[in-house]
């Protein structure tokens, strides 16, 4: 004889709903904007002293760093660009320094020759 009160109160759609509730809960406080086929969203940042997200903020801070430093992609590129810029600047300065040394040497040689003659 079949028991009439046997019922299954679970379905796949229930599980999908609870999964979506989890995702929505995790997404709370993040707003998304769509412009020209691209998506932009704001990520709330905790103002913890140990977690710097800006390159300059981190570099010039007097606080001790935490165990982890999280950088977003744009900050990472900012660092790369700054390093490249600094390298090219150093190359230029080294080149200028060599020219100055050559010029100074030439002036000294001329001065010495003038003094001797």
């Amino acid at each position, binding site marked *: 004889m079949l028991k009439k009160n046997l019922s299954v109160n679970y379905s796949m759609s229930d599980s999908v709903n*609870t*999964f*979506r*509730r*989890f*995702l*929505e*809960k*995790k*997404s709370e406080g*993040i707003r*998304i904007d*769509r412009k020209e*086929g*691209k*998506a932009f*969203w704001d*990520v709330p940042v905790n103002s913890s002293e140990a977690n710097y997200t800006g390159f300059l903020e981190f570099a010039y801070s007097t606080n001790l760093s935490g165990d*982890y430093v*999280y950088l977003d992609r744009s900050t990472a590129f900012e660092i790369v660009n700054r390093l490249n810029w600094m390298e090219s600047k150093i190359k230029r300065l080294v080149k200028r320094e060599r020219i100055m040394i050559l010029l100074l040497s030439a002036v000294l040689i001329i001065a010495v020759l003038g003094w001797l003659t």
Partner: protein
Amino acid sequence: MSSLRPLVNRFKEELERRFIGNENIKSILILNLLHKRSTILIRAPRGTGKSTLMLLILKGLFGDDFVVISGASEVKRGEVVGRLHIPSLERKGIEKVLWAKFVEARGKGIDEVNRLNPYTTANIHHLMQFGEVWAYGQKYTVEDYTLIANENPNDSTTFMQPPPFYDRFDIAVYLNSLSISQKFALQEFNEKNGYDLVRSMPQVMSFEELSQIRREVEETELDPEITGFINVLIRDFQICVKGKEHSNMPLPVLCEGCHFTRFICSRVREPPSERATIVLLQLAKAKKWLDGNVDEKDILEMAKWVLVHRTGLLNPEKPLKEIDELIEMEKERMFERESRKQWFILNELYSGFNPSLYRTAKEIAAEDNVFAEELFLLEEKWIKEGKISREETLKAELGLE
């Protein structure tokens, strides 16, 4: 607040007063007793108090209404399941079964479970699996119970019990021997109580009260974030993008060429069953019921005792240490997931396909196999809808197509 919480706290106090040392396992033991058909496995070397702990718990919850069978003695089927009532058969020709006290008792203990013969193990396995036992063609349905077993894993004179049997135990706790200060404390207690720890243990609650507690715990609701955390945690121990579950190829050979070789999956030979998720959910509910809250840190602490006996490890020599390391890895992964805001991106993709978000999701998936798995499912849907081609999917990019 439930009026029954003080009973649980008193039970904990009485247990702690008598069972000295091993502080790290007491909370999980108490929490695991708060759901229906609770099962606990205690593993320890000989003489470290595993039988005492088992008896203290059973006495504290059930008074004298508990039965302990010993794997070390010759246990017959009739003592564990049931035997035929001979007079009924002789006089009336009726096969009447006298069910064993072990089946009927609400508190069940198995001493030295790894010494049980395979036939007895099979009967107990069936009881734990289906909540029923069979004898002479008759069935006995077992209602709510608490089953505590113990074993010395280093005992050489034992049977190899099958992994599915151990999987039926909600948690496995490991005991350590006592430090000298703890030895002094135990001796002091024994002096005062006539060297009979178990007899001195009072029954703290009635079975009706325990049942009410278990009902209340069952009805406790968890936040979606906690449920999600548990599901992600267990999935991290289960997942293998190379199909470990249905492969005969052993680890680490299977992992060769895999993108995710630094992940937990590469150190798990046999993943935990879905029971791990169910038990962790029950423990989380119990924690919330008892303490008023449960957080992700609590879940990670509880996970150790849920996973240690149901996960086949690549380095099984020191299981507790290995599980500790894997859970430590898990903490970092969860932190990284939060930093990447990946669940938000997945939520957006569930709402609708967006090419730029999809590109970001693919980058994230390269760092997270659990996220990748969910993205694979979405990709299948988008392929059917004609939004993307199979060639541009993450699966194709990872060489898994």
